[in-house]
């Protein structure tokens, strides 16, 4: 298969040297070869994908062009609802649930001619950082199948890394797109909160959740985001203003841009290889004409604590609807209350139950001010910290994850260690600002390392401009050895 990126495939699809069918069959072949080891997908919609590919090819032959994603095989994290295709959010409580409607992002992908290959694995209800908290078994990292791919969008990241999709959508509540992108060597973006519709995204924490793309290149990321973002009247938190073009400045470089290095996101807990590669990239940016500033955002140290009150609090209400009453799993009970409570006890996994309890507690009378109220005040302080920083610099940079992909099972018994995986990514969810992870190299074990570029709200054009420069400076071309995986 010659085309590695959507940008490359686009040309071939239009000059007739490639067909959507070829791309989709290749993706399905990769999936067939690797799924037994990687388990990126919960559902592969082979028939639907081939049908959509045929439709895309027909459209091409009739000169019907719906945009850059036409004919491109795309995977969806299984917390985005798809009409007629089972959607479980990796939970037992939604086993067999077939939604009657498409999420807005799904409708937009379809309208743009994209081919949906299947639904990818995640930590149950997107709660986790390793894709091990799935009721349907973990996903493994294509770079090393003894390791996790990160999470919670680990299935989407692994699918793109392995090549069973050219792009995938994930959702990012505390780093769930960027951290797995970093751990699997792909590009992952959490856009500005409100720019991508959440209608049809099974909510984890509504004020933090944001859908974004995982792709093999920065350009692919920008074109995928352009296809899915934009105001949606079905989402009251959707941004109503003008959406900027994202691909126009990819070639512009970083000369004269002010780049802030976050001093809090380094030191203890950060692997030396990660720190070395990240500071090497900062040096290269300086060498390309960027002005480098050391920037301190002291509230980053308490962001994790605030996040672990706000996200579970919202989740405790968002997940209340899963009660066996109208859809999904239903356990037996003598009364409605007993049925609901048994369904929830049996249908939710331990991490989900832990977070529901945490959130319920944080919202309870007498504790609200000390926990949820206090966390909201920290959130405001984080926004102020960011505003101060962006008055001095154009973008902020840091590692995406303090470590490379860890071994499966390594952190499952220690929730706090698992929570620390998201230390670099959580602040942007609390502020609502956009951030991207770009692969910049491998550590000594051959595991990918990601570089995070953060920008102020709606600063995606600048974020992509810097990310494209980072991509060129890194010239990261390594790919996981799929023969090893498939064997």
């Amino acid at each position: 298969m010659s085309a590695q990126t959507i940008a490359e495939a686009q040309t071939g699809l239009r000059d007739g040297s490639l067909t959507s069918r070829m791309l989709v069959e290749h993706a399905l072949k990769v999936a067939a070869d690797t799924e037994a080891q990687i388990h990126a997908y919960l559902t592969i919609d082979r028939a639907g994908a081939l049908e959509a590919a045929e439709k895309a090819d027909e459209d091409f032959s009739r000169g019907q062009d719906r945009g850059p994603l036409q004919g491109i095989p795309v995977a969806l994290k299984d917390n985005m609802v798809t009409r007629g295709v089972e959607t479980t959010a990796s939970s037992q409580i939604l086993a067999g649930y077939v939604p009657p409607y498409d999420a807005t992002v799904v409708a937009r992908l379809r309208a743009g001619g994209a081919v949906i290959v299947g639904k990818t694995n995640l930590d149950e209800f997107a709660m986790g950082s390793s894709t091990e908290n799935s009721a349907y078994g973990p996903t493994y990292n294509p770079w090393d199948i003894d390791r996790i791919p990160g999470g919670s969008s680990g299935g989407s990241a692994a699918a793109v890394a392995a090549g069973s999709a050219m792009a995938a959508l994930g959702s990012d509540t505390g780093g769930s797109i960027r951290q797995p992108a970093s751990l699997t060597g792909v590009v992952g973006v959490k856009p500005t909160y409100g720019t991508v519709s959440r209608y049809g995204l099974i909510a984890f924490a509504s004020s933090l959740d944001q859908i974004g793309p995982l792709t093999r290149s920065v350009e692919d990321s920008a074109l995928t985001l352009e296809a899915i973002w934009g105001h949606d009247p079905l989402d009251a938190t959707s941004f109503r203003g003008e959406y900027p073009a994202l691909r126009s400045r990819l070639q512009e470089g970083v000369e004269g841009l002010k780049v802030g290095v976050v001093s809090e996101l380094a030191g203890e807990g950060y692997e030396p290889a990660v720190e070395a590669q990240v500071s090497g990239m900062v040096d290269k940016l300086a060498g390309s004409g960027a002005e480098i500033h050391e920037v301190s955002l002291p509230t980053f140290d308490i962001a994790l604590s605030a996040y672990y009150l706000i996200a579970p609090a919202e989740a405790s209400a968002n997940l209340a609807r899963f009660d066996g009453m109208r859809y999904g799993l239903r356990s037996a009970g003598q009364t409605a209350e007993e049925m609901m409570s048994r369904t929830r006890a049996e249908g939710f996994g331990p991490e989900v139950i832990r977070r529901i309890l945490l959130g319920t507690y944080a919202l309870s009378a007498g504790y609200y001010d000390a926990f949820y109220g206090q966390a909201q005040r920290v959130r405001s302080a984080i926004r102020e910290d960011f505003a101060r920083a962006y008055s001095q610099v154009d973008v902020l940079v840091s590692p995406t994850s303090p470590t490379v992909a860890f071994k499966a099972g390594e952190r499952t018994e220690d929730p706090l260690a698992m929570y620390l995986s998201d230390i670099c990514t959580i602040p942007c969810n609390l502020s609502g600002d956009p951030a991207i992870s770009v692969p910049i190299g491998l550590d000594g074990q051959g595991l990918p390392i990601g570089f995070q570029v953060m920008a102020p709200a709606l600063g995606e054009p600048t974020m992509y401009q810097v990310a494209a420069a980072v991509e060129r400076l890194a010239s990261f071309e390594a790919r996981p050895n799929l023969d090893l995986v498939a064997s």
Partner: protein
Amino acid sequence: MTWEAVIGIEVHVELSTESKMFCSCEVSFGAEPNTKVCPTCLGLPGALPVPNEKALDSIMAIGLALNCKVAPNSVFHRKNYFYADLPKNYQISQFDVPVCLEGYLDTTVDGETHRVGIERAHMEEDTGKSTHVGEGGRIHAASSTLLDFNRSGVPLVEIVSRPDIHSAAQARSYAQALRGVVAELGVSDARLEEGSIRFDANISIRPEGDDELGTKVEVKNMNSFRSLEQAVDYEIKRQIDLVESGGTVIQETRHWDEEAGVTHSMRTKEGSSDYRYFAEPDLVPMEMGREWVDRIAATLPELPEQRLERYRSAGLEDTLAAVLSGADSPLRGLYEDAVESGADARAAANWVTGEVTAWARRNETETQDLAISGSQLAGLLALIDDGKVSASAAKDVLDGVLLGEGDPAEVAESRDLIQISDSAAIDAVVDEVLQTNPDAVESLRNGEDKVLGFLVGQVMRATRGKADPQLVNATIRERVGSG
């Protein structure tokens, strides 16, 4: 000891908007169960709420009509509790920043104005409807429960009064006045029997003169104003009897049993329920700017209490003003137009609430279909005033007008109802009657005044009721010389 009842009333008003509060499903009463539903009002995974601005218009209108302040910013909260007919297991409601705050409603009880403070009016969504099957419809005895989500997400305004109500009569009067306001605004069907307006009463008692509030009991399930009054009355007595016999009132919710005429304990609240309110993250804070509030204020119709005041100052006595104020709007319009055309207010009000209303009832005609204009009614009243038709003949004229026979003067003419007030014509008839009744004339001369009526009657009969009786009377006395 003398006891004082302290009562606050919570009112839930279902708005009659075209679509639901947070989705575009149709609001309709009585549709096939679970046919007016979508992912949002069913609480399907991934669905999101989008506020209905028309519903916000309505709550603002209610708030302004109740003399409330409209908050410049208002926030929706999630109220968390598990219940089978609540699809998300949280209700989108409001907590500390409701749309409307601090108003009042004046009502009239036994001729006195009674002011009830309004604490707040907030916006929320309705739940689905549970129908308990078997054993009298009570949940604990039910063999199964049917859920209908057509009502889920219907916009609901909750209006909370201050505990300014002290008797069952005041409670009823407040509820009726509030329903009147809501109906006048046209924002709700406001039908008690369909549950589109629902009243819950919080009732406590305390020794007369005490400032401290007693333990309150919430009473639910009153489906008419009468049952509200009876339930409040019963509950006050129950609490007094309980305390006087050495018992203690416990905080609980009680269900009014219409048939038995008593309240039953439904559930005891151990402390207050913890609904874990927090700001709804799927919605952004609402901004009700000056312009929006002014736009709604400009559309407010005249409200019952204002209208009553206006009628009183136009010279209508209290009862007449109240009857007219409570009349259908076409009848009130007829009154207004007649007065506009120069009719006397009291005469117009009397005719509208009396003869016109009676005619409509007799002829089974809807008031909006009555074929009489204000100027026609004014014309009819002028005919009476000018002595052209008698009061009794005027009813015939009205009948003719309403049957489309023409203007009052034309009808009076064509139905031959014009009074004879020409003295020459009356003289002739009187002379004839006196000649044919010499005995009566003799009696009258001798001071037997009672025969005057007989003679007048004879003249009236001879003129088939059209002679002006005053004139006839005077003429006879003059001719007989008994004056």
